[in-house]
């Protein structure tokens, strides 16, 4: 969706408006960036926090930070990586606010309740997406960082502040849960 609200003009008649044009161009360029990367940023946040509402707030925060650094990001080839990293870190920080809950879940052997195949969840990819979101935090986060962010076990352990063995166990458990769900589904 294109945001077409006019910018408030600063200055008086006859003033050189090249600065304003530059500002307008800046905002439009940023809008293109948001359009190009919004799905990626939202996916990173949603898969880590497992909650679409929180993911939207996190995505918004990521883009606001990107705008604050837009001078450096403009024209940079690493903008996608920058956005991915910031989204990952903000999503993990969001979960860390509930660290106690995280620990609690990490000790649980939970049976994941995935809805049966319905017309809405017929699509296998959609089912996999839901299954990822339903995984306990302690399994989902390392799994997402490993498979979608392509981080190594060591990097994940470092980022989450947990042991290497726990990272491996949690990813294995998460994969087993996903495999079980998908093989059950015809």
């Amino acid at each position, binding site marked *: *969706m294109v*945001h077409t*609200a006019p*910018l*408030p003009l*600063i200055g008086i008649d006859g003033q050189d408006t090249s*600065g*304003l044009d530059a*500002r307008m161009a*800046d*905002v439009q360029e*940023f*809008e293109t960036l*948001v*359009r190009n990367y*919004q*799905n*990626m*940023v*939202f*996916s990173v946040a*949603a*898969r880590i926090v497992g909650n*679409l509402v929180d993911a*939207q707030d996190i*995505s*918004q925060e990521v*883009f*606001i930070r990107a*705008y*604050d650094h837009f001078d450096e990001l403009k024209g940079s080839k690493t903008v996608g990586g920058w956005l991915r990293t910031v989204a990952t870190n903000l999503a993990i920080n969001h979960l860390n606010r509930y660290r106690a809950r995280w620990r609690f879940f990490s000790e649980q052997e939970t049976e994941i309740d995935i809805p049966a195949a319905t017309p809405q969840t017929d699509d*296998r*990819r959609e089912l*996999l*997406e839901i299954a990822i979101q339903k995984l306990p935090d302690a399994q989902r986060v390392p799994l997402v960082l490993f*498979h*979608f962010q392509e981080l190594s076990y060591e990097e994940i352990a470092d980022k989450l502040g947990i042991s290497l063995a726990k990272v491996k166990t949690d990813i294995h458990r998460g*994969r087993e849960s*996903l*495999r079980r769900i*998908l*093989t059950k*589904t*015809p």
Partner: protein
Amino acid sequence: MKEPSEDWLDEELRRLPDLEAPPDLMPKVMDAVQSRSARRWMTAMSRRHLPFLRNSGLGLALAVMVLVPWLNPGQAVLGFFRQSPFFNLVIELLSAGETILANLRIFNLPIGWLIGVVIGISYLACIFAASAIQRLASTKRL
């Protein structure tokens, strides 16, 4: 369902496309950006024109230093107050008060004598107070 191979899950995860961002994400982001845009632009402009702004400020300060004695703004302010009806009313009230006090002859008393009497009475009061305290203290000790 056909038994999947060992790495079929990796394949499924790899092929999983990005989720679609909610339609209201972009307007929300752009609203926040619009409000920050003006501030960011002002900061960039002030940074770019910092030497000009600094020199202008210095020039203005020098101009003020020259113009203040020449234009005498203090005189202008006083003139403004003199013409003000409120200020005139206050002056009238003060002069009426002065007249009343003068008619009471309070200012006709010799001021030197008055000050001398007040100092003398205060001195005597201090001496009496000190001797009374000393007496009370010695009585308690006994």
